[in-house]
């Protein structure tokens, strides 16, 4: 019953975000990476769904058989990092859209930069662009978890 209730809450939150984004669309700048805003919205919704799924999985993973094993610990760490990465990526997408920035399209030259003067949003964008610092550990912990599972020292769920 608790699981069902949780699903409904997640779905309701997701729907609310979708409606807010739909009702208040950001301005369309010329340098946006997604040519059409539908693509970005779809991508953002995918991030929201992915975040909700990760939260749901983290919540339910405790109750699964063998949930306290080492393999499951790694799996949960992986989920947490993926969750952080998801939030980070979502923030980047919003800031890109807000600041009409896309670092990928400035240049591929090593001397490329975000020209000053910059504000806190630019700084936040700059920091959150290092998203690999979250997704690489997330993949690493997923690998560790799988490795633990292959060693067979766990209880199968």
């Amino acid at each position, binding site marked *: 019953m608790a*699981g069902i209730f949780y*699903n409904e809450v997640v779905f309701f939150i997701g729907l609310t975000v979708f409606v807010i984004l739909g009702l208040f669309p950001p301005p369309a700048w010329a340098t946006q*990476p*997604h*040519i059409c805003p539908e*693509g970005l919205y*779809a*991508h953002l919704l*995918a*991030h929201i*769904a*992915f975040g*909700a*799924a*990760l939260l*749901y*999985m983290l919540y*339910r*993973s405790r109750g*699964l058989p063998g949930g306290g094993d080492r393999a499951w610990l790694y799996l949960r760490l992986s989920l947490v990092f993926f969750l952080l990465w998801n939030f980070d990526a979502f923030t980047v997408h919003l800031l890109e859209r807000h600041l009409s920035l896309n*670092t*990928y*399209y*400035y*240049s*591929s*030259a*090593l*001397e*490329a*930069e*975000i*020209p*000053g*003067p*910059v*504000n806190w949003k*630019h*700084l936040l964008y*700059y920091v959150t*662009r*290092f*998203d*690999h*610092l979250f*997704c*690489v550990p997330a*993949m*690493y912990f*997923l*690998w560790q*978890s*799988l*490795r633990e*599972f*292959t060693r067979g020292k766990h209880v*199968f*769920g």
Partner: protein
Amino acid sequence: MFSVSLPLYPLYAVDLVGAILMILISFACLEKAFYLLRHHPDHLLFVYLFGLSLSFTAFALSRSMGHVVRFILGWSGHPHLWFVLAPFSGALNTVFILLAAFLTFVFPRAHQTFRLLEEETQQLKETKEALEKAHDHLQQLYRTLEEKVEERTRELALSEQKFRRLFEAAGDAIFFCDQEGRLLDINPAGVQLLGFTRKEELLGRSLGEFFACRGEWNRYREFLCAEGQVTNFETLLLTSHGEERYVVITANAIEYLQGCHLGWQGIMKDLTRFREMTERMIYSEKMAALGQLAAGVAHEINTPLGIILGYTQLLKESQEEREELQLIEDQVRVCQRLISDLLIFSRPSPQAEQPVDLKEIVRQVLEMVQPTYRKEGIEINLHVSDSPVIRGDPDRLRQVVLNLLGNARDALQGGGAIHIWIYRLRRGGAVLEVGDTGPGIPEEIREKIFEPFFTTKPPGQGTGLGLFVTFGLVKEHGGEIEVFSPPAEERYLRLGIRTLFRIIFPEGNHVSG
């Protein structure tokens, strides 16, 4: 606001290295997940992890290859081409993120469903195992029960056979009656006891029909109903031929579980012969005692009688009153004859026992008495089918025959017939029967005829010692004497015999006649 520019090369470096690492690690994950899936194909968690790894690998390829390709295109002077490829990369990223989200959402629910299914499957399996166990147990019980039933049936059949044999072969009557006393079953000994030849003739008839006294039957029923059983109930039955059977019955009521009487079952023992023998033995003892008493008294009187007779004869020679003395002498001689008869019991046999032809003894007596009897209108018929030899004193045996013939002669006042039978019994023994066509012996005196001094003649005409002496002599020879008045057998009745004396001597050497 900060008046600085933010260099992008650290960002590019991290993206490049991170992209390569993501591709490598995602493939490593895919390899591990595939390994798990291959070894545990039916394990839902590993299916999920494989799906997740596959999604992340595809995502990593799509996203990381995007970074790499973008750098290559930028450095090669064709950054505009990235504008063509970027939407595809972004769309693929979206798809793979959604796929990962979908799998992550579905897994816990699917897992829960699978768990429920597994639990139900397990429960079904356990139930099936329990049912199989119960089935095996029941089958074993059924087999055991079948074997036990067979064994009990065999035992029952054996028991039934055993009791049936006992029932059929028993010397005593065994019977089963319903509540009303009607015979439901009775064994052959019972059929014979009641004078029938077939059981079917008896079944359904009341046992009370055979009770000589109706009151006895009612008493028997009342007692049985009240007490539930009777032990050694002595009564007299009348067979279908009217013969008396003295029996002792032990019976008990057959009851329902509720205690209601269903009928009776019992055993009847025929004591007729036993009772006759007992009575005969008592009678023999009585007669022996009387004989000894009489003989003792006779012996004591004999001496003074001899003295009286001697002096009477002396006085007759010297005295005038000769007539009176003659009377005394006659009476003394009568007394001496009586004493002579009585002393038969106490006197030793004058000669040793020897084989005697019974027919010859009878013939000698007949030669002596037949002329006299003929004059009196008495016809004597001798029926000899065999010539048995017994051991005994010929004189005493002649006395026996003479006494029986004298008794018959007394009964045939005005003429009649005397029949004598001599034959051998199959079971051994020589039989001498003397019957007459006289009036017969009244029942009330039948038991007294062998007693000493018992006579139906007027005073002075009979001594009452004839049959008494006969009885004593027969006993002396180890024989038995019985009287039937009238006899039951048709062959005697056809000849008009009303009184029959039967003597059975133990047989000695047989001399062919």
